[in-house]
């Protein structure tokens, strides 16, 4: 159920811009780690390198000790890592149930054709994430921001990950919605899921993580216990914009 993630000396260049510079960290199985940093620090870019959407310029990414850099995104999903997107972009003309269905699909054309969708599993994931059965046939355009984020989580969860990368899961949510997603993350933690969570909402993040990694300008500036990282001068300074 849990996966270990090791990142070694990750460098990503977009033309002349260095989005991440020599980033290294390790997440032990079952740990929940917050990834924090100001806008443009390179948080999302770390995610897209882990998923292989924007392959790194240099460095290594290991899941459970195995290098995954040579794998395409779908294979990385099968290795047990999955992510949500900062801006939810669901399949816009598909119902909630169908969105989840895509996440549940096997990567075999033959299976797709010969076996029908697993309705129970769709309902199960939806309700685990707090989407009611009455919402299953809705289109994404009819959902609130909170429900869209839930759908994003549901689609990610459907791929049965052992390591989840959550990008700004609380952005644009009401206090109640934050509580729902927070509870969900808590209960998955209890089941052993490994998490790497990006959030600007530190109040919502704090109870969900034990460790934190702070980055700025693409470089790790502090990592360790959450409280220690948040207490360090350099992190405070970077948030106040003086570093």
């Amino acid at each position: 159920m849990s996966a270990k993630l090791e990142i070694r000396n990750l460098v990503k260049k977009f033309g002349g811009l260095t989005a991440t510079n020599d980033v290294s960290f390790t997440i032990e199985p079952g740990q929940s780690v917050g990834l924090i940093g100001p806008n443009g620090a390179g948080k999302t870019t770390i995610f897209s390198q882990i998923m292989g959407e924007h392959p790194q310029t240099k460095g290594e990414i290991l899941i459970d000790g195995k290098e995954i850099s040579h794998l395409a995104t779908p294979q990385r999903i099968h290795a047990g890592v999955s992510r949500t997107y900062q801006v939810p972009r669901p399949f816009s003309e598909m119902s909630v149930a169908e969105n989840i269905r895509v996440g549940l699909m096997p990567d075999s054309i033959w299976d797709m054709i010969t076996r029908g969708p697993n309705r129970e599993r769709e309902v199960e994931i939806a309700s685990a994430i707090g989407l009611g059965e009455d919402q299953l046939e809705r289109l994404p355009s009819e959902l609130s921001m909170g429900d869209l984020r839930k759908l994003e989580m549901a689609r990610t969860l459907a791929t049965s990950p052992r390591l989840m990368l959550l990008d700004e899961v609380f952005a644009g949510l009401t206090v109640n919605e934050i509580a729902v997603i927070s509870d969900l993350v808590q209960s998955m933690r209890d089941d052993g899921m490994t998490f790497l969570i990006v959030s600007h909402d530190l109040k919502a993040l704090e109870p969900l993580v034990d460790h934190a990694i702070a980055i700025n300008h693409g470089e790790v500036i502090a990592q360790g216990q959450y409280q220690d990282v948040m207490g360090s001068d350099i992190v405070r300074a970077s948030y106040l914009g003086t570093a």
Partner: protein
Amino acid sequence: MNLRWHHFALWALFIVGMFALPQFVSNGTLRTMIFANFLAIFAISWDTLSGRTGYISFGHPFLIGIGAYTTAILTHRFDFPVEISIPIAVIATMVGGLIVLLPALRIKGSYFALVTLAMMELVYQLVQVVRPDLTGGTRGMSGLPTLTRGAANGYYMSVSLMLAIALSMWLIMKTRLGTALSAIGMNEEAVSGSGLSVTKLKMTAFLMSAFIAGLGGAVYIHYLGSIAPRALFDINFVFTIIVAALIGGAGTTIGPIAGAFFLTFLLEYLRPWLPGAERYMVYSGLALLIYMYQPKGMWALMTQATFKSKIRP
């Protein structure tokens, strides 16, 4: 699979209706309907690739042409029987198309459209100059073996083929494969982010599309009994196929069929007033209006009107 009994009832009704038609209409109308059937086949083929996945093919006649030329050359120059040459033509279309266009499926959107367009023009030019002793060069070939005689038989053959293809595609698109293909059209990144190999899916869509195009193309020229490069590799032909699929409703099965019939009959009814190519003025003007107003086609317009459902424009 989300299949309901009334779906099958509607199909049964549709099939019975199509087969009963020759009793009620003139031979002239039947001949028009034969062309509509073939156009429907080509439009379904286009839709299987482009309508679902959003990879727009502007060179579909390239695929149709491989099928058509393969069987024409085999039967005309090497005296193959049609029963053998058509299956070979279908396989040639799938393999040939894949070799040429597989690299192109890696590239995105507009570029894919351009490669297919260039492909069609390339084949058009090559067919005329490379081995004209085989291809018949600019003039093409005539006197090819025909499959049927008489309007009614031609109609039964074309409508059976069209319905068989339509029903199979409808069934396949109802499965999760259909869902996955449409998902590519909406957000390719999220499909691979769901653990599905997008390349494999696109290839599957392409092979199905090529299968239909090759089969349709091969049977079509054995209905016509002749083949001519200018009529085949023609931007107006591409345009007719795409517009048939779009005007009816891309991403559906009934849409391309409806579009093909609508357009074929529109062209036919315009003939007394506008005998030449200027008929396309009405045709394209109408297509443009419908498309600008509702890119999802008449099918969506109708369902919108009936159910007032929220389909995004």
